[in-house]
């Protein structure tokens, strides 16, 4: 769907990953500078912190969800993007994001599109909820 044709109520679903890997957690740690061992050190996560194992940085899920947003708005300009972290994301998870167009307004010759964002895991549990707005080229 081209952003130029969007209407309120439109939804678009994207698969972020079919099978989240521990390697991607390591890539994100290195790229972001968040080396919290909870996300990369399985021994630490299990035996020192009491988790079943390593789990994804919330910011990795937000970053992956951000790709769904930029794919949708295309060469539009992102104005705002915010999320709430609702549940943890684990290696092996399948993640899908659904964007819903909740508003379209005109502002100074630009079209501003408002989006509702939900990323869920393979069990249908919401891991991220959020909103974004972007200025679309007219």
């Amino acid at each position: 769907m081209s952003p130029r044709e969007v209407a309120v109520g439109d939804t678009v679903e994207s698969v972020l990953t079919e099978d989240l890997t521990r390697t991607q957690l390591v890539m994100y740690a290195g790229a972001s500078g968040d080396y919290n061992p909870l996300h990369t050190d399985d021994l630490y996560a299990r035996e020192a912190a009491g988790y079943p194992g390593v789990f994804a940085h919330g910011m990795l899920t937000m970053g992956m969800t951000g790709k769904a947003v930029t794919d949708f708005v295309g060469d539009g300009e992102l104005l705002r993007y915010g999320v709430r972290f609702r549940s943890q994301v684990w290696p092996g998870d399948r993640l899908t994001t659904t964007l819903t167009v909740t508003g379209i307004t005109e502002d100074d010759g630009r079209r501003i599109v408002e989006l509702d964002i939900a990323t869920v895991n393979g069990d249908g549990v919401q891991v991220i909820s959020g909103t974004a707005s972007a200025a679309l080229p007219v």
Partner: protein
Amino acid sequence: MSSFTFPVEAGAVLLFSRAVGYPDSAYGDGKSGAPPTFVQSSAQFDPESHLRPKPGEPWRGSGRTPSGLAAPVPTAGSLHAEQSYEYHRPVRVGDLLTATQVPGKSWEKAGRRGGALTFTETITEYRDSAGELVVTARSVAVVPSKVVEAPAEDAGSGGSGSNEESAVAR
């Protein structure tokens, strides 16, 4: 309040874009800006970041022991509850941003499993070398006020669903 300089480098943008799932064609040319959450990698340039090991300082990660520390890990620590960005203009490769962290509001809320949760907001302003605001980031961290025995409980692991209090460790 603390402040540090964060250069937006082409290689760093490419590596970050790969880590969050973009093909190299998205941001690999060094001219297409940066992924929406890229400014989070300013942690690499924050001299006070507690998220990376520093030479000569103890680090909580497994080595000879699972925790890397002589004593057990004391608390569940801080969890990331919310994150948002306001973009005043796109971030571009070549920007020399100054990140200034400003403490925000703080509030308490009763947790679902008892005990109080303390939420703390941090605002980070990213300004370019002309002093113009580029991105305003807002982060909300939550800390359980009581030491919990199983950190996984308060971190909402195991698919506890969409409770208001749930949060993900940073």
